[in-house]
């Protein structure tokens, strides 16, 4: 265990969700689930976060925004797609304005399906993401320790 897995800060972005999953994400922060127990904080700023939690599918309007936010998260970072829309586009997949799941734009590490995804499964997904985060950190350090780590294209 490193510090990274004890203090994952998440950034939650609502791509084009119906708000169902968003409410469940916020439910994780309530006293009932209290994810701060695991050191998880909901930050409002990509530059401070480690885990990018996205709800809803990608459309024309937010495609660039998702990319931009992803680029502004410092390495190591993981992406968790929450809800079926974020994983594949869900029922909106065939919509004229929807491009599909988040993985059409940025590499996704953990998929949390569900409509809406339950808080338990969201927390589960984030805990799973921690493992991947740790792996990424190890890989970031390993290849050539002298050089600076390059961000973005590892996955």
């Amino acid at each position, binding site marked *: 265990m490193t510090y990274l897995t004890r203090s994952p800060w998440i950034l939650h*972005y609502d791509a084009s969700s119906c708000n169902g999953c968003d409410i469940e994400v916020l439910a994780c922060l309530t006293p009932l689930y209290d994810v701060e127990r695991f050191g998880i904080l909901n930050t409002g*700023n*990509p*530059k401070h976060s480690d885990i990018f939690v996205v709800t809803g599918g990608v459309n024309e309007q937010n495609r*660039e*925004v*998702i*990319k*931009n*936010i992803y*680029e*502004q998260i410092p390495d190591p970072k993981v992406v968790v797609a929450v809800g079926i829309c974020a994983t594949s586009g869900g029922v909106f997949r065939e919509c004229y304005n929807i491009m599909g799941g988040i993985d059409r734009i940025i590499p996704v590490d953990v998929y949390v399906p569900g409509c809406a995804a339950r808080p338990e499964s969201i927390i589960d997904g984030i805990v799973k993401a921690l493992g991947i985060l740790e792996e990424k950190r190890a890989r970031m350090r390993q290849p050539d320790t002298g050089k*600076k780590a390059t*961000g973005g294209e590892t996955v």
Partner: protein
Amino acid sequence: MIELAFLIIFPTIVAFLLLFISRGAFRDSVVKIAALVIGAGSVYLLIRYYNQGLVLFSAPFEPATEIMFGIELIIAVLLLYLGIRYRKYLAVVLVLFQTALLLLVELVLLSDAHPETNLFIDQFSLIMAMIIGIIGTLICVYSLGYMETYHTRHPEVKDRRRLYFFMVFVFLAAMFGLVFSNNLLWVFFFWEITTLCSFILIGYAETHEATNNAFLALEMNLLGGIAFAGALIYVLSVDPTGGLLEIENLLASGHAIALIPAVLLGFAGITKAALMPFSSWLVGAMVAPTPVSALLHSSTMVKAGVYIIVRFAPVLTGTPEGLIIGLIGGFTFLLASAIAISQSNAKKVLAYSTIANLGLIVACAGVGTYKLVWAAILLIIFHAIAKSLLFLCVGTVEHRIGSRNIEDMSGLIIRMPKLAVMMIVGIAGMFLAPFGMLISKWAAIEAFIEAQFGLIFVAILAFGGSLTVFFWSKWMGKILSFDPNAVGEEKSVKVEKWLVLYILTGLTVLICLIFPLISSTLIEPFVLAVYGQTARLSQDNLIIMAMMLFLLMIMPFSMLISGNNGKKVSAYMGGRPTSPDLKFAGSMGITRDVTLTNYYFNDMFGEKRLLMTGTALCFGLILLAGVILAGMIL
């Protein structure tokens, strides 16, 4: 004595020489050589007299005074002519009144007065002379390049550079005369000359605004001149032999005699130093070319106002009148600092900051304990250097970017890196530890606590000081922000301008390092001679300050250490993708620019509101002092 006379007469000769030179290159070399000579002269003066304490010289009284009287009458006629020509009848009335008082002094009261020692020098005069001789001449050299650019930029302004340099050098001579004169009559003469210089140089551009502001400055300074003349009349009526005309004798004569002239001179000083009811003239004076603002309206001429008050601080201390003068200074400090927050015009910010700091100096001198006088003299030194540097920086920036608005200085660190760093040094010198002004403010806080009614001033300093932090920091932040639209444009600044700016920047830092030396060789002996005791900072604090300064100087090198400086990404824009120049797609497909502007808090710190408060408050205090004074005279 020959040195003193040289420093007064030589600039006068150069001034008349410059009046007849119209060729640029020749003028350049004359000004530079003269600056070098005057600078060297004042340094020689320092070496010659720094350890001699107060030295009095018996200069011939009659012939000099008669020449001065003649010149004063000529000036009065000139001012009357200009007043009538521009229909400024208030100025005309004031000139007439002052001339009447002067005639009374010269023709009636002076008949059997024979002051002996008319020139003197002590450590305080030396400090003032150094400021005039070094900073003043540096500004003269700077103005060569500045005025050239000024006239190419403002083709509508008539090229009167001969008059400009004539006035500037006459001004230098007058300032030297002012600080070397032990005779109040002579001080008055030089005082009037500086008023005239200020009047003519403010009106240099000959625009409607410039003329109006010049007359505003003239009228307010004439009010002070009338008070000054009143002091002369009082002194001569008390002692017709004129012995009390000598400042040293007057100071030694004790409260009973010296208080009334001291208060009148204090009033004159308040007008000259542009404290609150009279602050508008200094703000208006910013229409003058920037070197003039730097020379007359921040580092030297306005300092003449505080010089005279600091001189008379031993008389004022512990009296209600002194307290009132101190309060006027204190309120001016507080309110002018607040007003500076609401200003975006860099020169106006500098003007208000100057007014504020002059207020602080007067507050120190008015309360006038020995510790406060020590702090006041430190303030005079630090302020003169840092403020002239800032004015010259703003002047240079203005000519490059075509604006004196702080908002337009965004990203200056990219556009003009060297100048930006100098500006930062100047600004830091105005309010940050461990630089100069802060040291003096600190000393002032410590000194005020022990003074009578000092708590009021401590509160004023606590609140006013934090206001100062606000307007300087936001200016600093604006300069240092990495505006993506900024491109380098520093070229084409003249070598001599760079030289002057480098020297002033170096001085700002150097003075922080060697101020304990200045304090121990000049300020402390002066305070000791006047009060019999003196103040100084504790050794521990000096060491810590030096360490902080050292740390500040080495910190920037941390940027040079190669290591992981981080990967560059764009700024966070709420996820909105932006182009490199920070344009982003807004709603409805409109492309929008990012513009960032500072806070100005106009509804809280608006100029109009606070100026009214300050004028009312300080005017009331002046009336109060007037009533007390009238009571004393009657």
